[in-house]
């Protein structure tokens, strides 16, 4: 009869629909792809797959029934939690791809489990939501420059794989102010030291200053780019944060004609960074642990992505043979294919390759640091593969 009437009716009805579909239906939406399809889902209360809601801080939560390994195999991709905004560790590149040291370890785990280093779905997480994401099973493994600590291992309910990068808090200051690589915290007397607010670096430096019996002026800023701007402009005499961060800044932001030094040689704090998995899934933790160990052993034995296939055919010693899937291999016992670590080395590389590829461009060298191999005086050490 008249069209306005119909359109008004449609408008009224549609606003209900929009409300309804916004409130109810997409609540079930993205739960499906992240969790395994449970049989007979339609008879359960909702269509959503059984994702257990957990309180953050809850201890001992079984991450997924049947284990993370089975979930990853069923899904065919590894959900890997990264930062997405951490220089050299996990960067989001202009084409949307994720690169970096942490990202490469995600690829290594995917290569070991699925035989394909590209079968990774990177989930970018903030520092606040990272542990909840592991507990709820949103990510299978968290490799997000996360420091292993006692409370995180126990109270927060995480399990830590071996450390892949030994970091530690250091200080950076100008040569023109009389600092050298051998300077110590005691030399900072009277200096304006800047760092970002709300982190443990703030507490570490003031503790160190108290211990050395000096007075420093501690100034904090909201984020590290602003800290660096103030350092460059001269408002700060020294800046402090994790050594890896300082080296990156020095490589990229040191003005022509100025020299910055990073000290003290032994850092103010210990920040061992490594992969994290959910509590009490030791099959899965073993896989992540031995993927890391495999890259370290390969580095030690000189197995690289270029020669791994040859080495697998003619192993120089029994351990390399076992590791690359030859006689006496132990990978099958872990629930992995025998050539799992061969895939890791050929597709991603050994520890040194991963390190050099990602951390080299920002000026982080292994030599003389804690991240050198144990034979070269560093801490990178793996138990034997036997």
């Amino acid at each position, binding site marked *: 009869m008249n*069209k306005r009437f*119909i359109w008004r009716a449609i408008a009224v009805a549609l606003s209900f629909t*929009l409300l309804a*579909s916004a409130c109810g239906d997409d609540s079930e939406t993205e739960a499906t792809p992240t969790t395994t399809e449970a049989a007979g889902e339609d008879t359960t*209360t909702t269509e959503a797959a059984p*994702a257990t809601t957990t309180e953050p801080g809850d201890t001992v939560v079984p991450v997924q029934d049947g284990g993370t390994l089975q979930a990853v195999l069923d899904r065919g991709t590894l959900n890997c939690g990264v930062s*997405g905004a951490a220089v050299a560790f996990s960067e989001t590149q*202009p084409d949307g791809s994720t690169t970096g040291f942490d990202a490469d370890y995600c690829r290594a785990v995917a290569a070991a489990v699925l035989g394909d280093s590209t079968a990774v779905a990177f989930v*970018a997480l903030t520092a606040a939501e990272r542990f909840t994401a592991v507990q709820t099973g949103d990510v299978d493994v968290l490799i997000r420059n996360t420091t292993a600590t006692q409370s995180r291992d126990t109270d927060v309910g995480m399990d830590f794989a071996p450390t892949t990068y030994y970091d530690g808090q250091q200080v950076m200051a100008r040569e023109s102010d009389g600092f050298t690589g051998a300077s110590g915290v005691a030399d900072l007397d009277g200096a304006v030291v800047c760092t970002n607010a709300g982190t443990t670096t703030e507490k570490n430096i003031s503790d160190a200053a108290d211990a050395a019996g000096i007075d420093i002026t501690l100034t904090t800023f909201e984020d590290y780019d602003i800290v660096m701007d103030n350092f460059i402009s001269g408002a700060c005499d020294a800046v402090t944060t994790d050594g890896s961060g300082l080296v990156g*800044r020095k490589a990229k932001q040191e003005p022509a004609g100025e020299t910055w030094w990073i000290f003290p040689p032994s850092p103010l704090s210990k920040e061992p960074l490594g992969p994290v998995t959910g509590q009490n899934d030791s099959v899965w933790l073993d896989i992540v642990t031995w993927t890391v160990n495999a890259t370290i052993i390969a580095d030690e034995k000189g197995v690289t992505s270029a020669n791994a296939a040859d080495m697998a055919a003619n192993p120089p010693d029994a351990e390399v043979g076992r590791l690359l899937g030859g006689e006496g291999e132990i990978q099958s016992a872990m629930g992995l294919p025998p050539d799992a670590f061969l895939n890791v080395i050929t597709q991603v590389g050994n520890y040194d390759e991963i390190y050099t590829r990602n951390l080299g461009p920002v000026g982080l060298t292994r030599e003389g640091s804690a991240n050198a191999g144990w034979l070269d005086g560093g801490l990178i050490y793996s138990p034997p593969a036997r």
Partner: protein
Amino acid sequence: MSEESGVALESATEDDIDDQPMLKPEEPSLPPGEWVQKNLFSSVFNSVLTILTIVVMAFAVRGLLNYIFSEERVWSAPATNARLILTFAYPESQYARVWVTVGLLAVLAGTSIGLWAQWAGVSAKKLCFWSMNLGSGILLAIVLTQPGVHRDAAGEVLRDADSAVLRKSFATAMSDRLVWWIVGLAFIGAGLLAWNWLGEMRRRTIRVPSSALIFGSLGLIILSLWIVNYGHYAFSDGEFIAISGRTVASTTKQPWTVMWLILVGSFFLGRRISQSQRAVSVKGLMNLAWLLSPFIIYWVILRDPSIDYSHVWTTDLPIFLAFAIGGGAILWLLSYPGIGEAGRLAGVGLVVVAIFQFAAAFTGWYPMLQKARISFVVLALVGLAASNFSGERSQRVRFVGVWVVLMALLHYFATVMNSPATVDVVSENFTGGLTVTLFVTALTLMISFPLGVVLALGRTSSLPIFRIMSTAYIESIRGVPLITILFFFSNILPLFLPDGMDIAEFAAIILGYSLFSAAYLAENVRGGLQAIRRGQYEAADALGLTSPQRTSFIVLPQALRISIPPLVGQVIGTFKETSLIAIIGGFDLLRIGNQVIPAQTQFLGIKRENLLIVAAMYWLITFAISKYSMRLERRLGVGER
């Protein structure tokens, strides 16, 4: 009968008012000298103020220009990361989907402009002014910007012994900018020539259509992509590409050219339709298309769901048919003209059952599909309103027809939303950058607008229960900061849901924004409601309108018209508030510029350039919204009638 009177009243208030070019008696334009004296230097105090303002503005502009054109700026950071800023990590192989989206929006926008726009056009006088202003702006910028630096053959900045940069002399800098001198003077010259040649009368009467101006300037921008050497910045196969001396990549300029052609083409299509008989129904269809577009774009085009058809045949389709046929039958009965109070009672009964079903879901009493439960709520609400749609047979048929279409849409989207995406993207939020900013804004407004209107009506209602509930809702939401609500919805809400129920992050975010925005919208609308004079209500009563008719045909249209300025303020506010997504873990425009790009090894610590670009994008969109609202206000005569 009541129906017709309502329509008649409504048509007087809605979009039939022409925005004809009205030639207002204009003050004769003063000669420039007199104008300046009259407006800027009329007294000593004014003169001082004028000079002071000019000096301050010159310094500010100089600072901005020097900043933008400084040799230290790394504009290649946002340029290389343009894709990240616009769509975040949407995979390149699937980029055709993004272009389909843009194309769809271009068709909708072009057709709508063609259908609805009755722009008065811009007078030749204004155009002359714009041209002269643009020219003088360019000349001013040339003079104010500090001279460039000396570079060696490799493009490196030369420095003196103290490592300070070596700047060119002022004269060299000015002669370097010869091209821009010519451009600036050409604009001024063109404006002056046209001004004198046209004469007072023609300056005011000759009008250039706004559409031609808008599409023309868009076309010029796109044409410049093919001609001007903006530089080719890209990232492919892990390599950064930076070639400054060439035009942008063809993967940028070709699609945008096509998009422009689509836009202009659909504008002419819209124009054609607007003169045909079908204009009214096409307008309705366009409204529907706009309303559905965010859902189709987000869940169908961009996500490309893989629908499990065996599930569709065994579960989804039967449920749909049950609701379409069963629900249709119920509504057919409820819209029977003679049903009277029994119909209302049945509607209320349906609502009670619907609420009970949700209560049952939370306590886990009996299993039922979420989709069915929600469909039932919709059925109950439509059933409650059914008596308003009773009438002749054909009208009831249409009513039930609309219901079936509605159910089809609801069930289609529910199925699509529940199907996993086949497009692999980083991060749970599926998309990021400008895309997520726009989607959250659009969906939030769609949900919060009706909710806000309902709340406003509730708060002004004479029924205490509605008034108390609305007031309680509005005051409690307004008493809490938005960020708290967002934290609540993204972190705490999942803990309240019953076992096995999960809410997607994106849905939680939109829900949070919508509930917040609705409270503010409600207050804006209430402001409009209070401005309606008592006489309007009494006149409606005298005509014998029922209370819902009075509200929907007389009160609301006027109230909404009055509320346009605050409502647009709310729209703009919501758009800008989407930057809070960054805090709860989403990758919106701001976070990408502020955190993601500065963390790339290549562009470590490059932040200000990105932030400036992001700010410019926010400003452009906000400016467009407020310009549109000003036009709308003028067309509806806000503040004049």
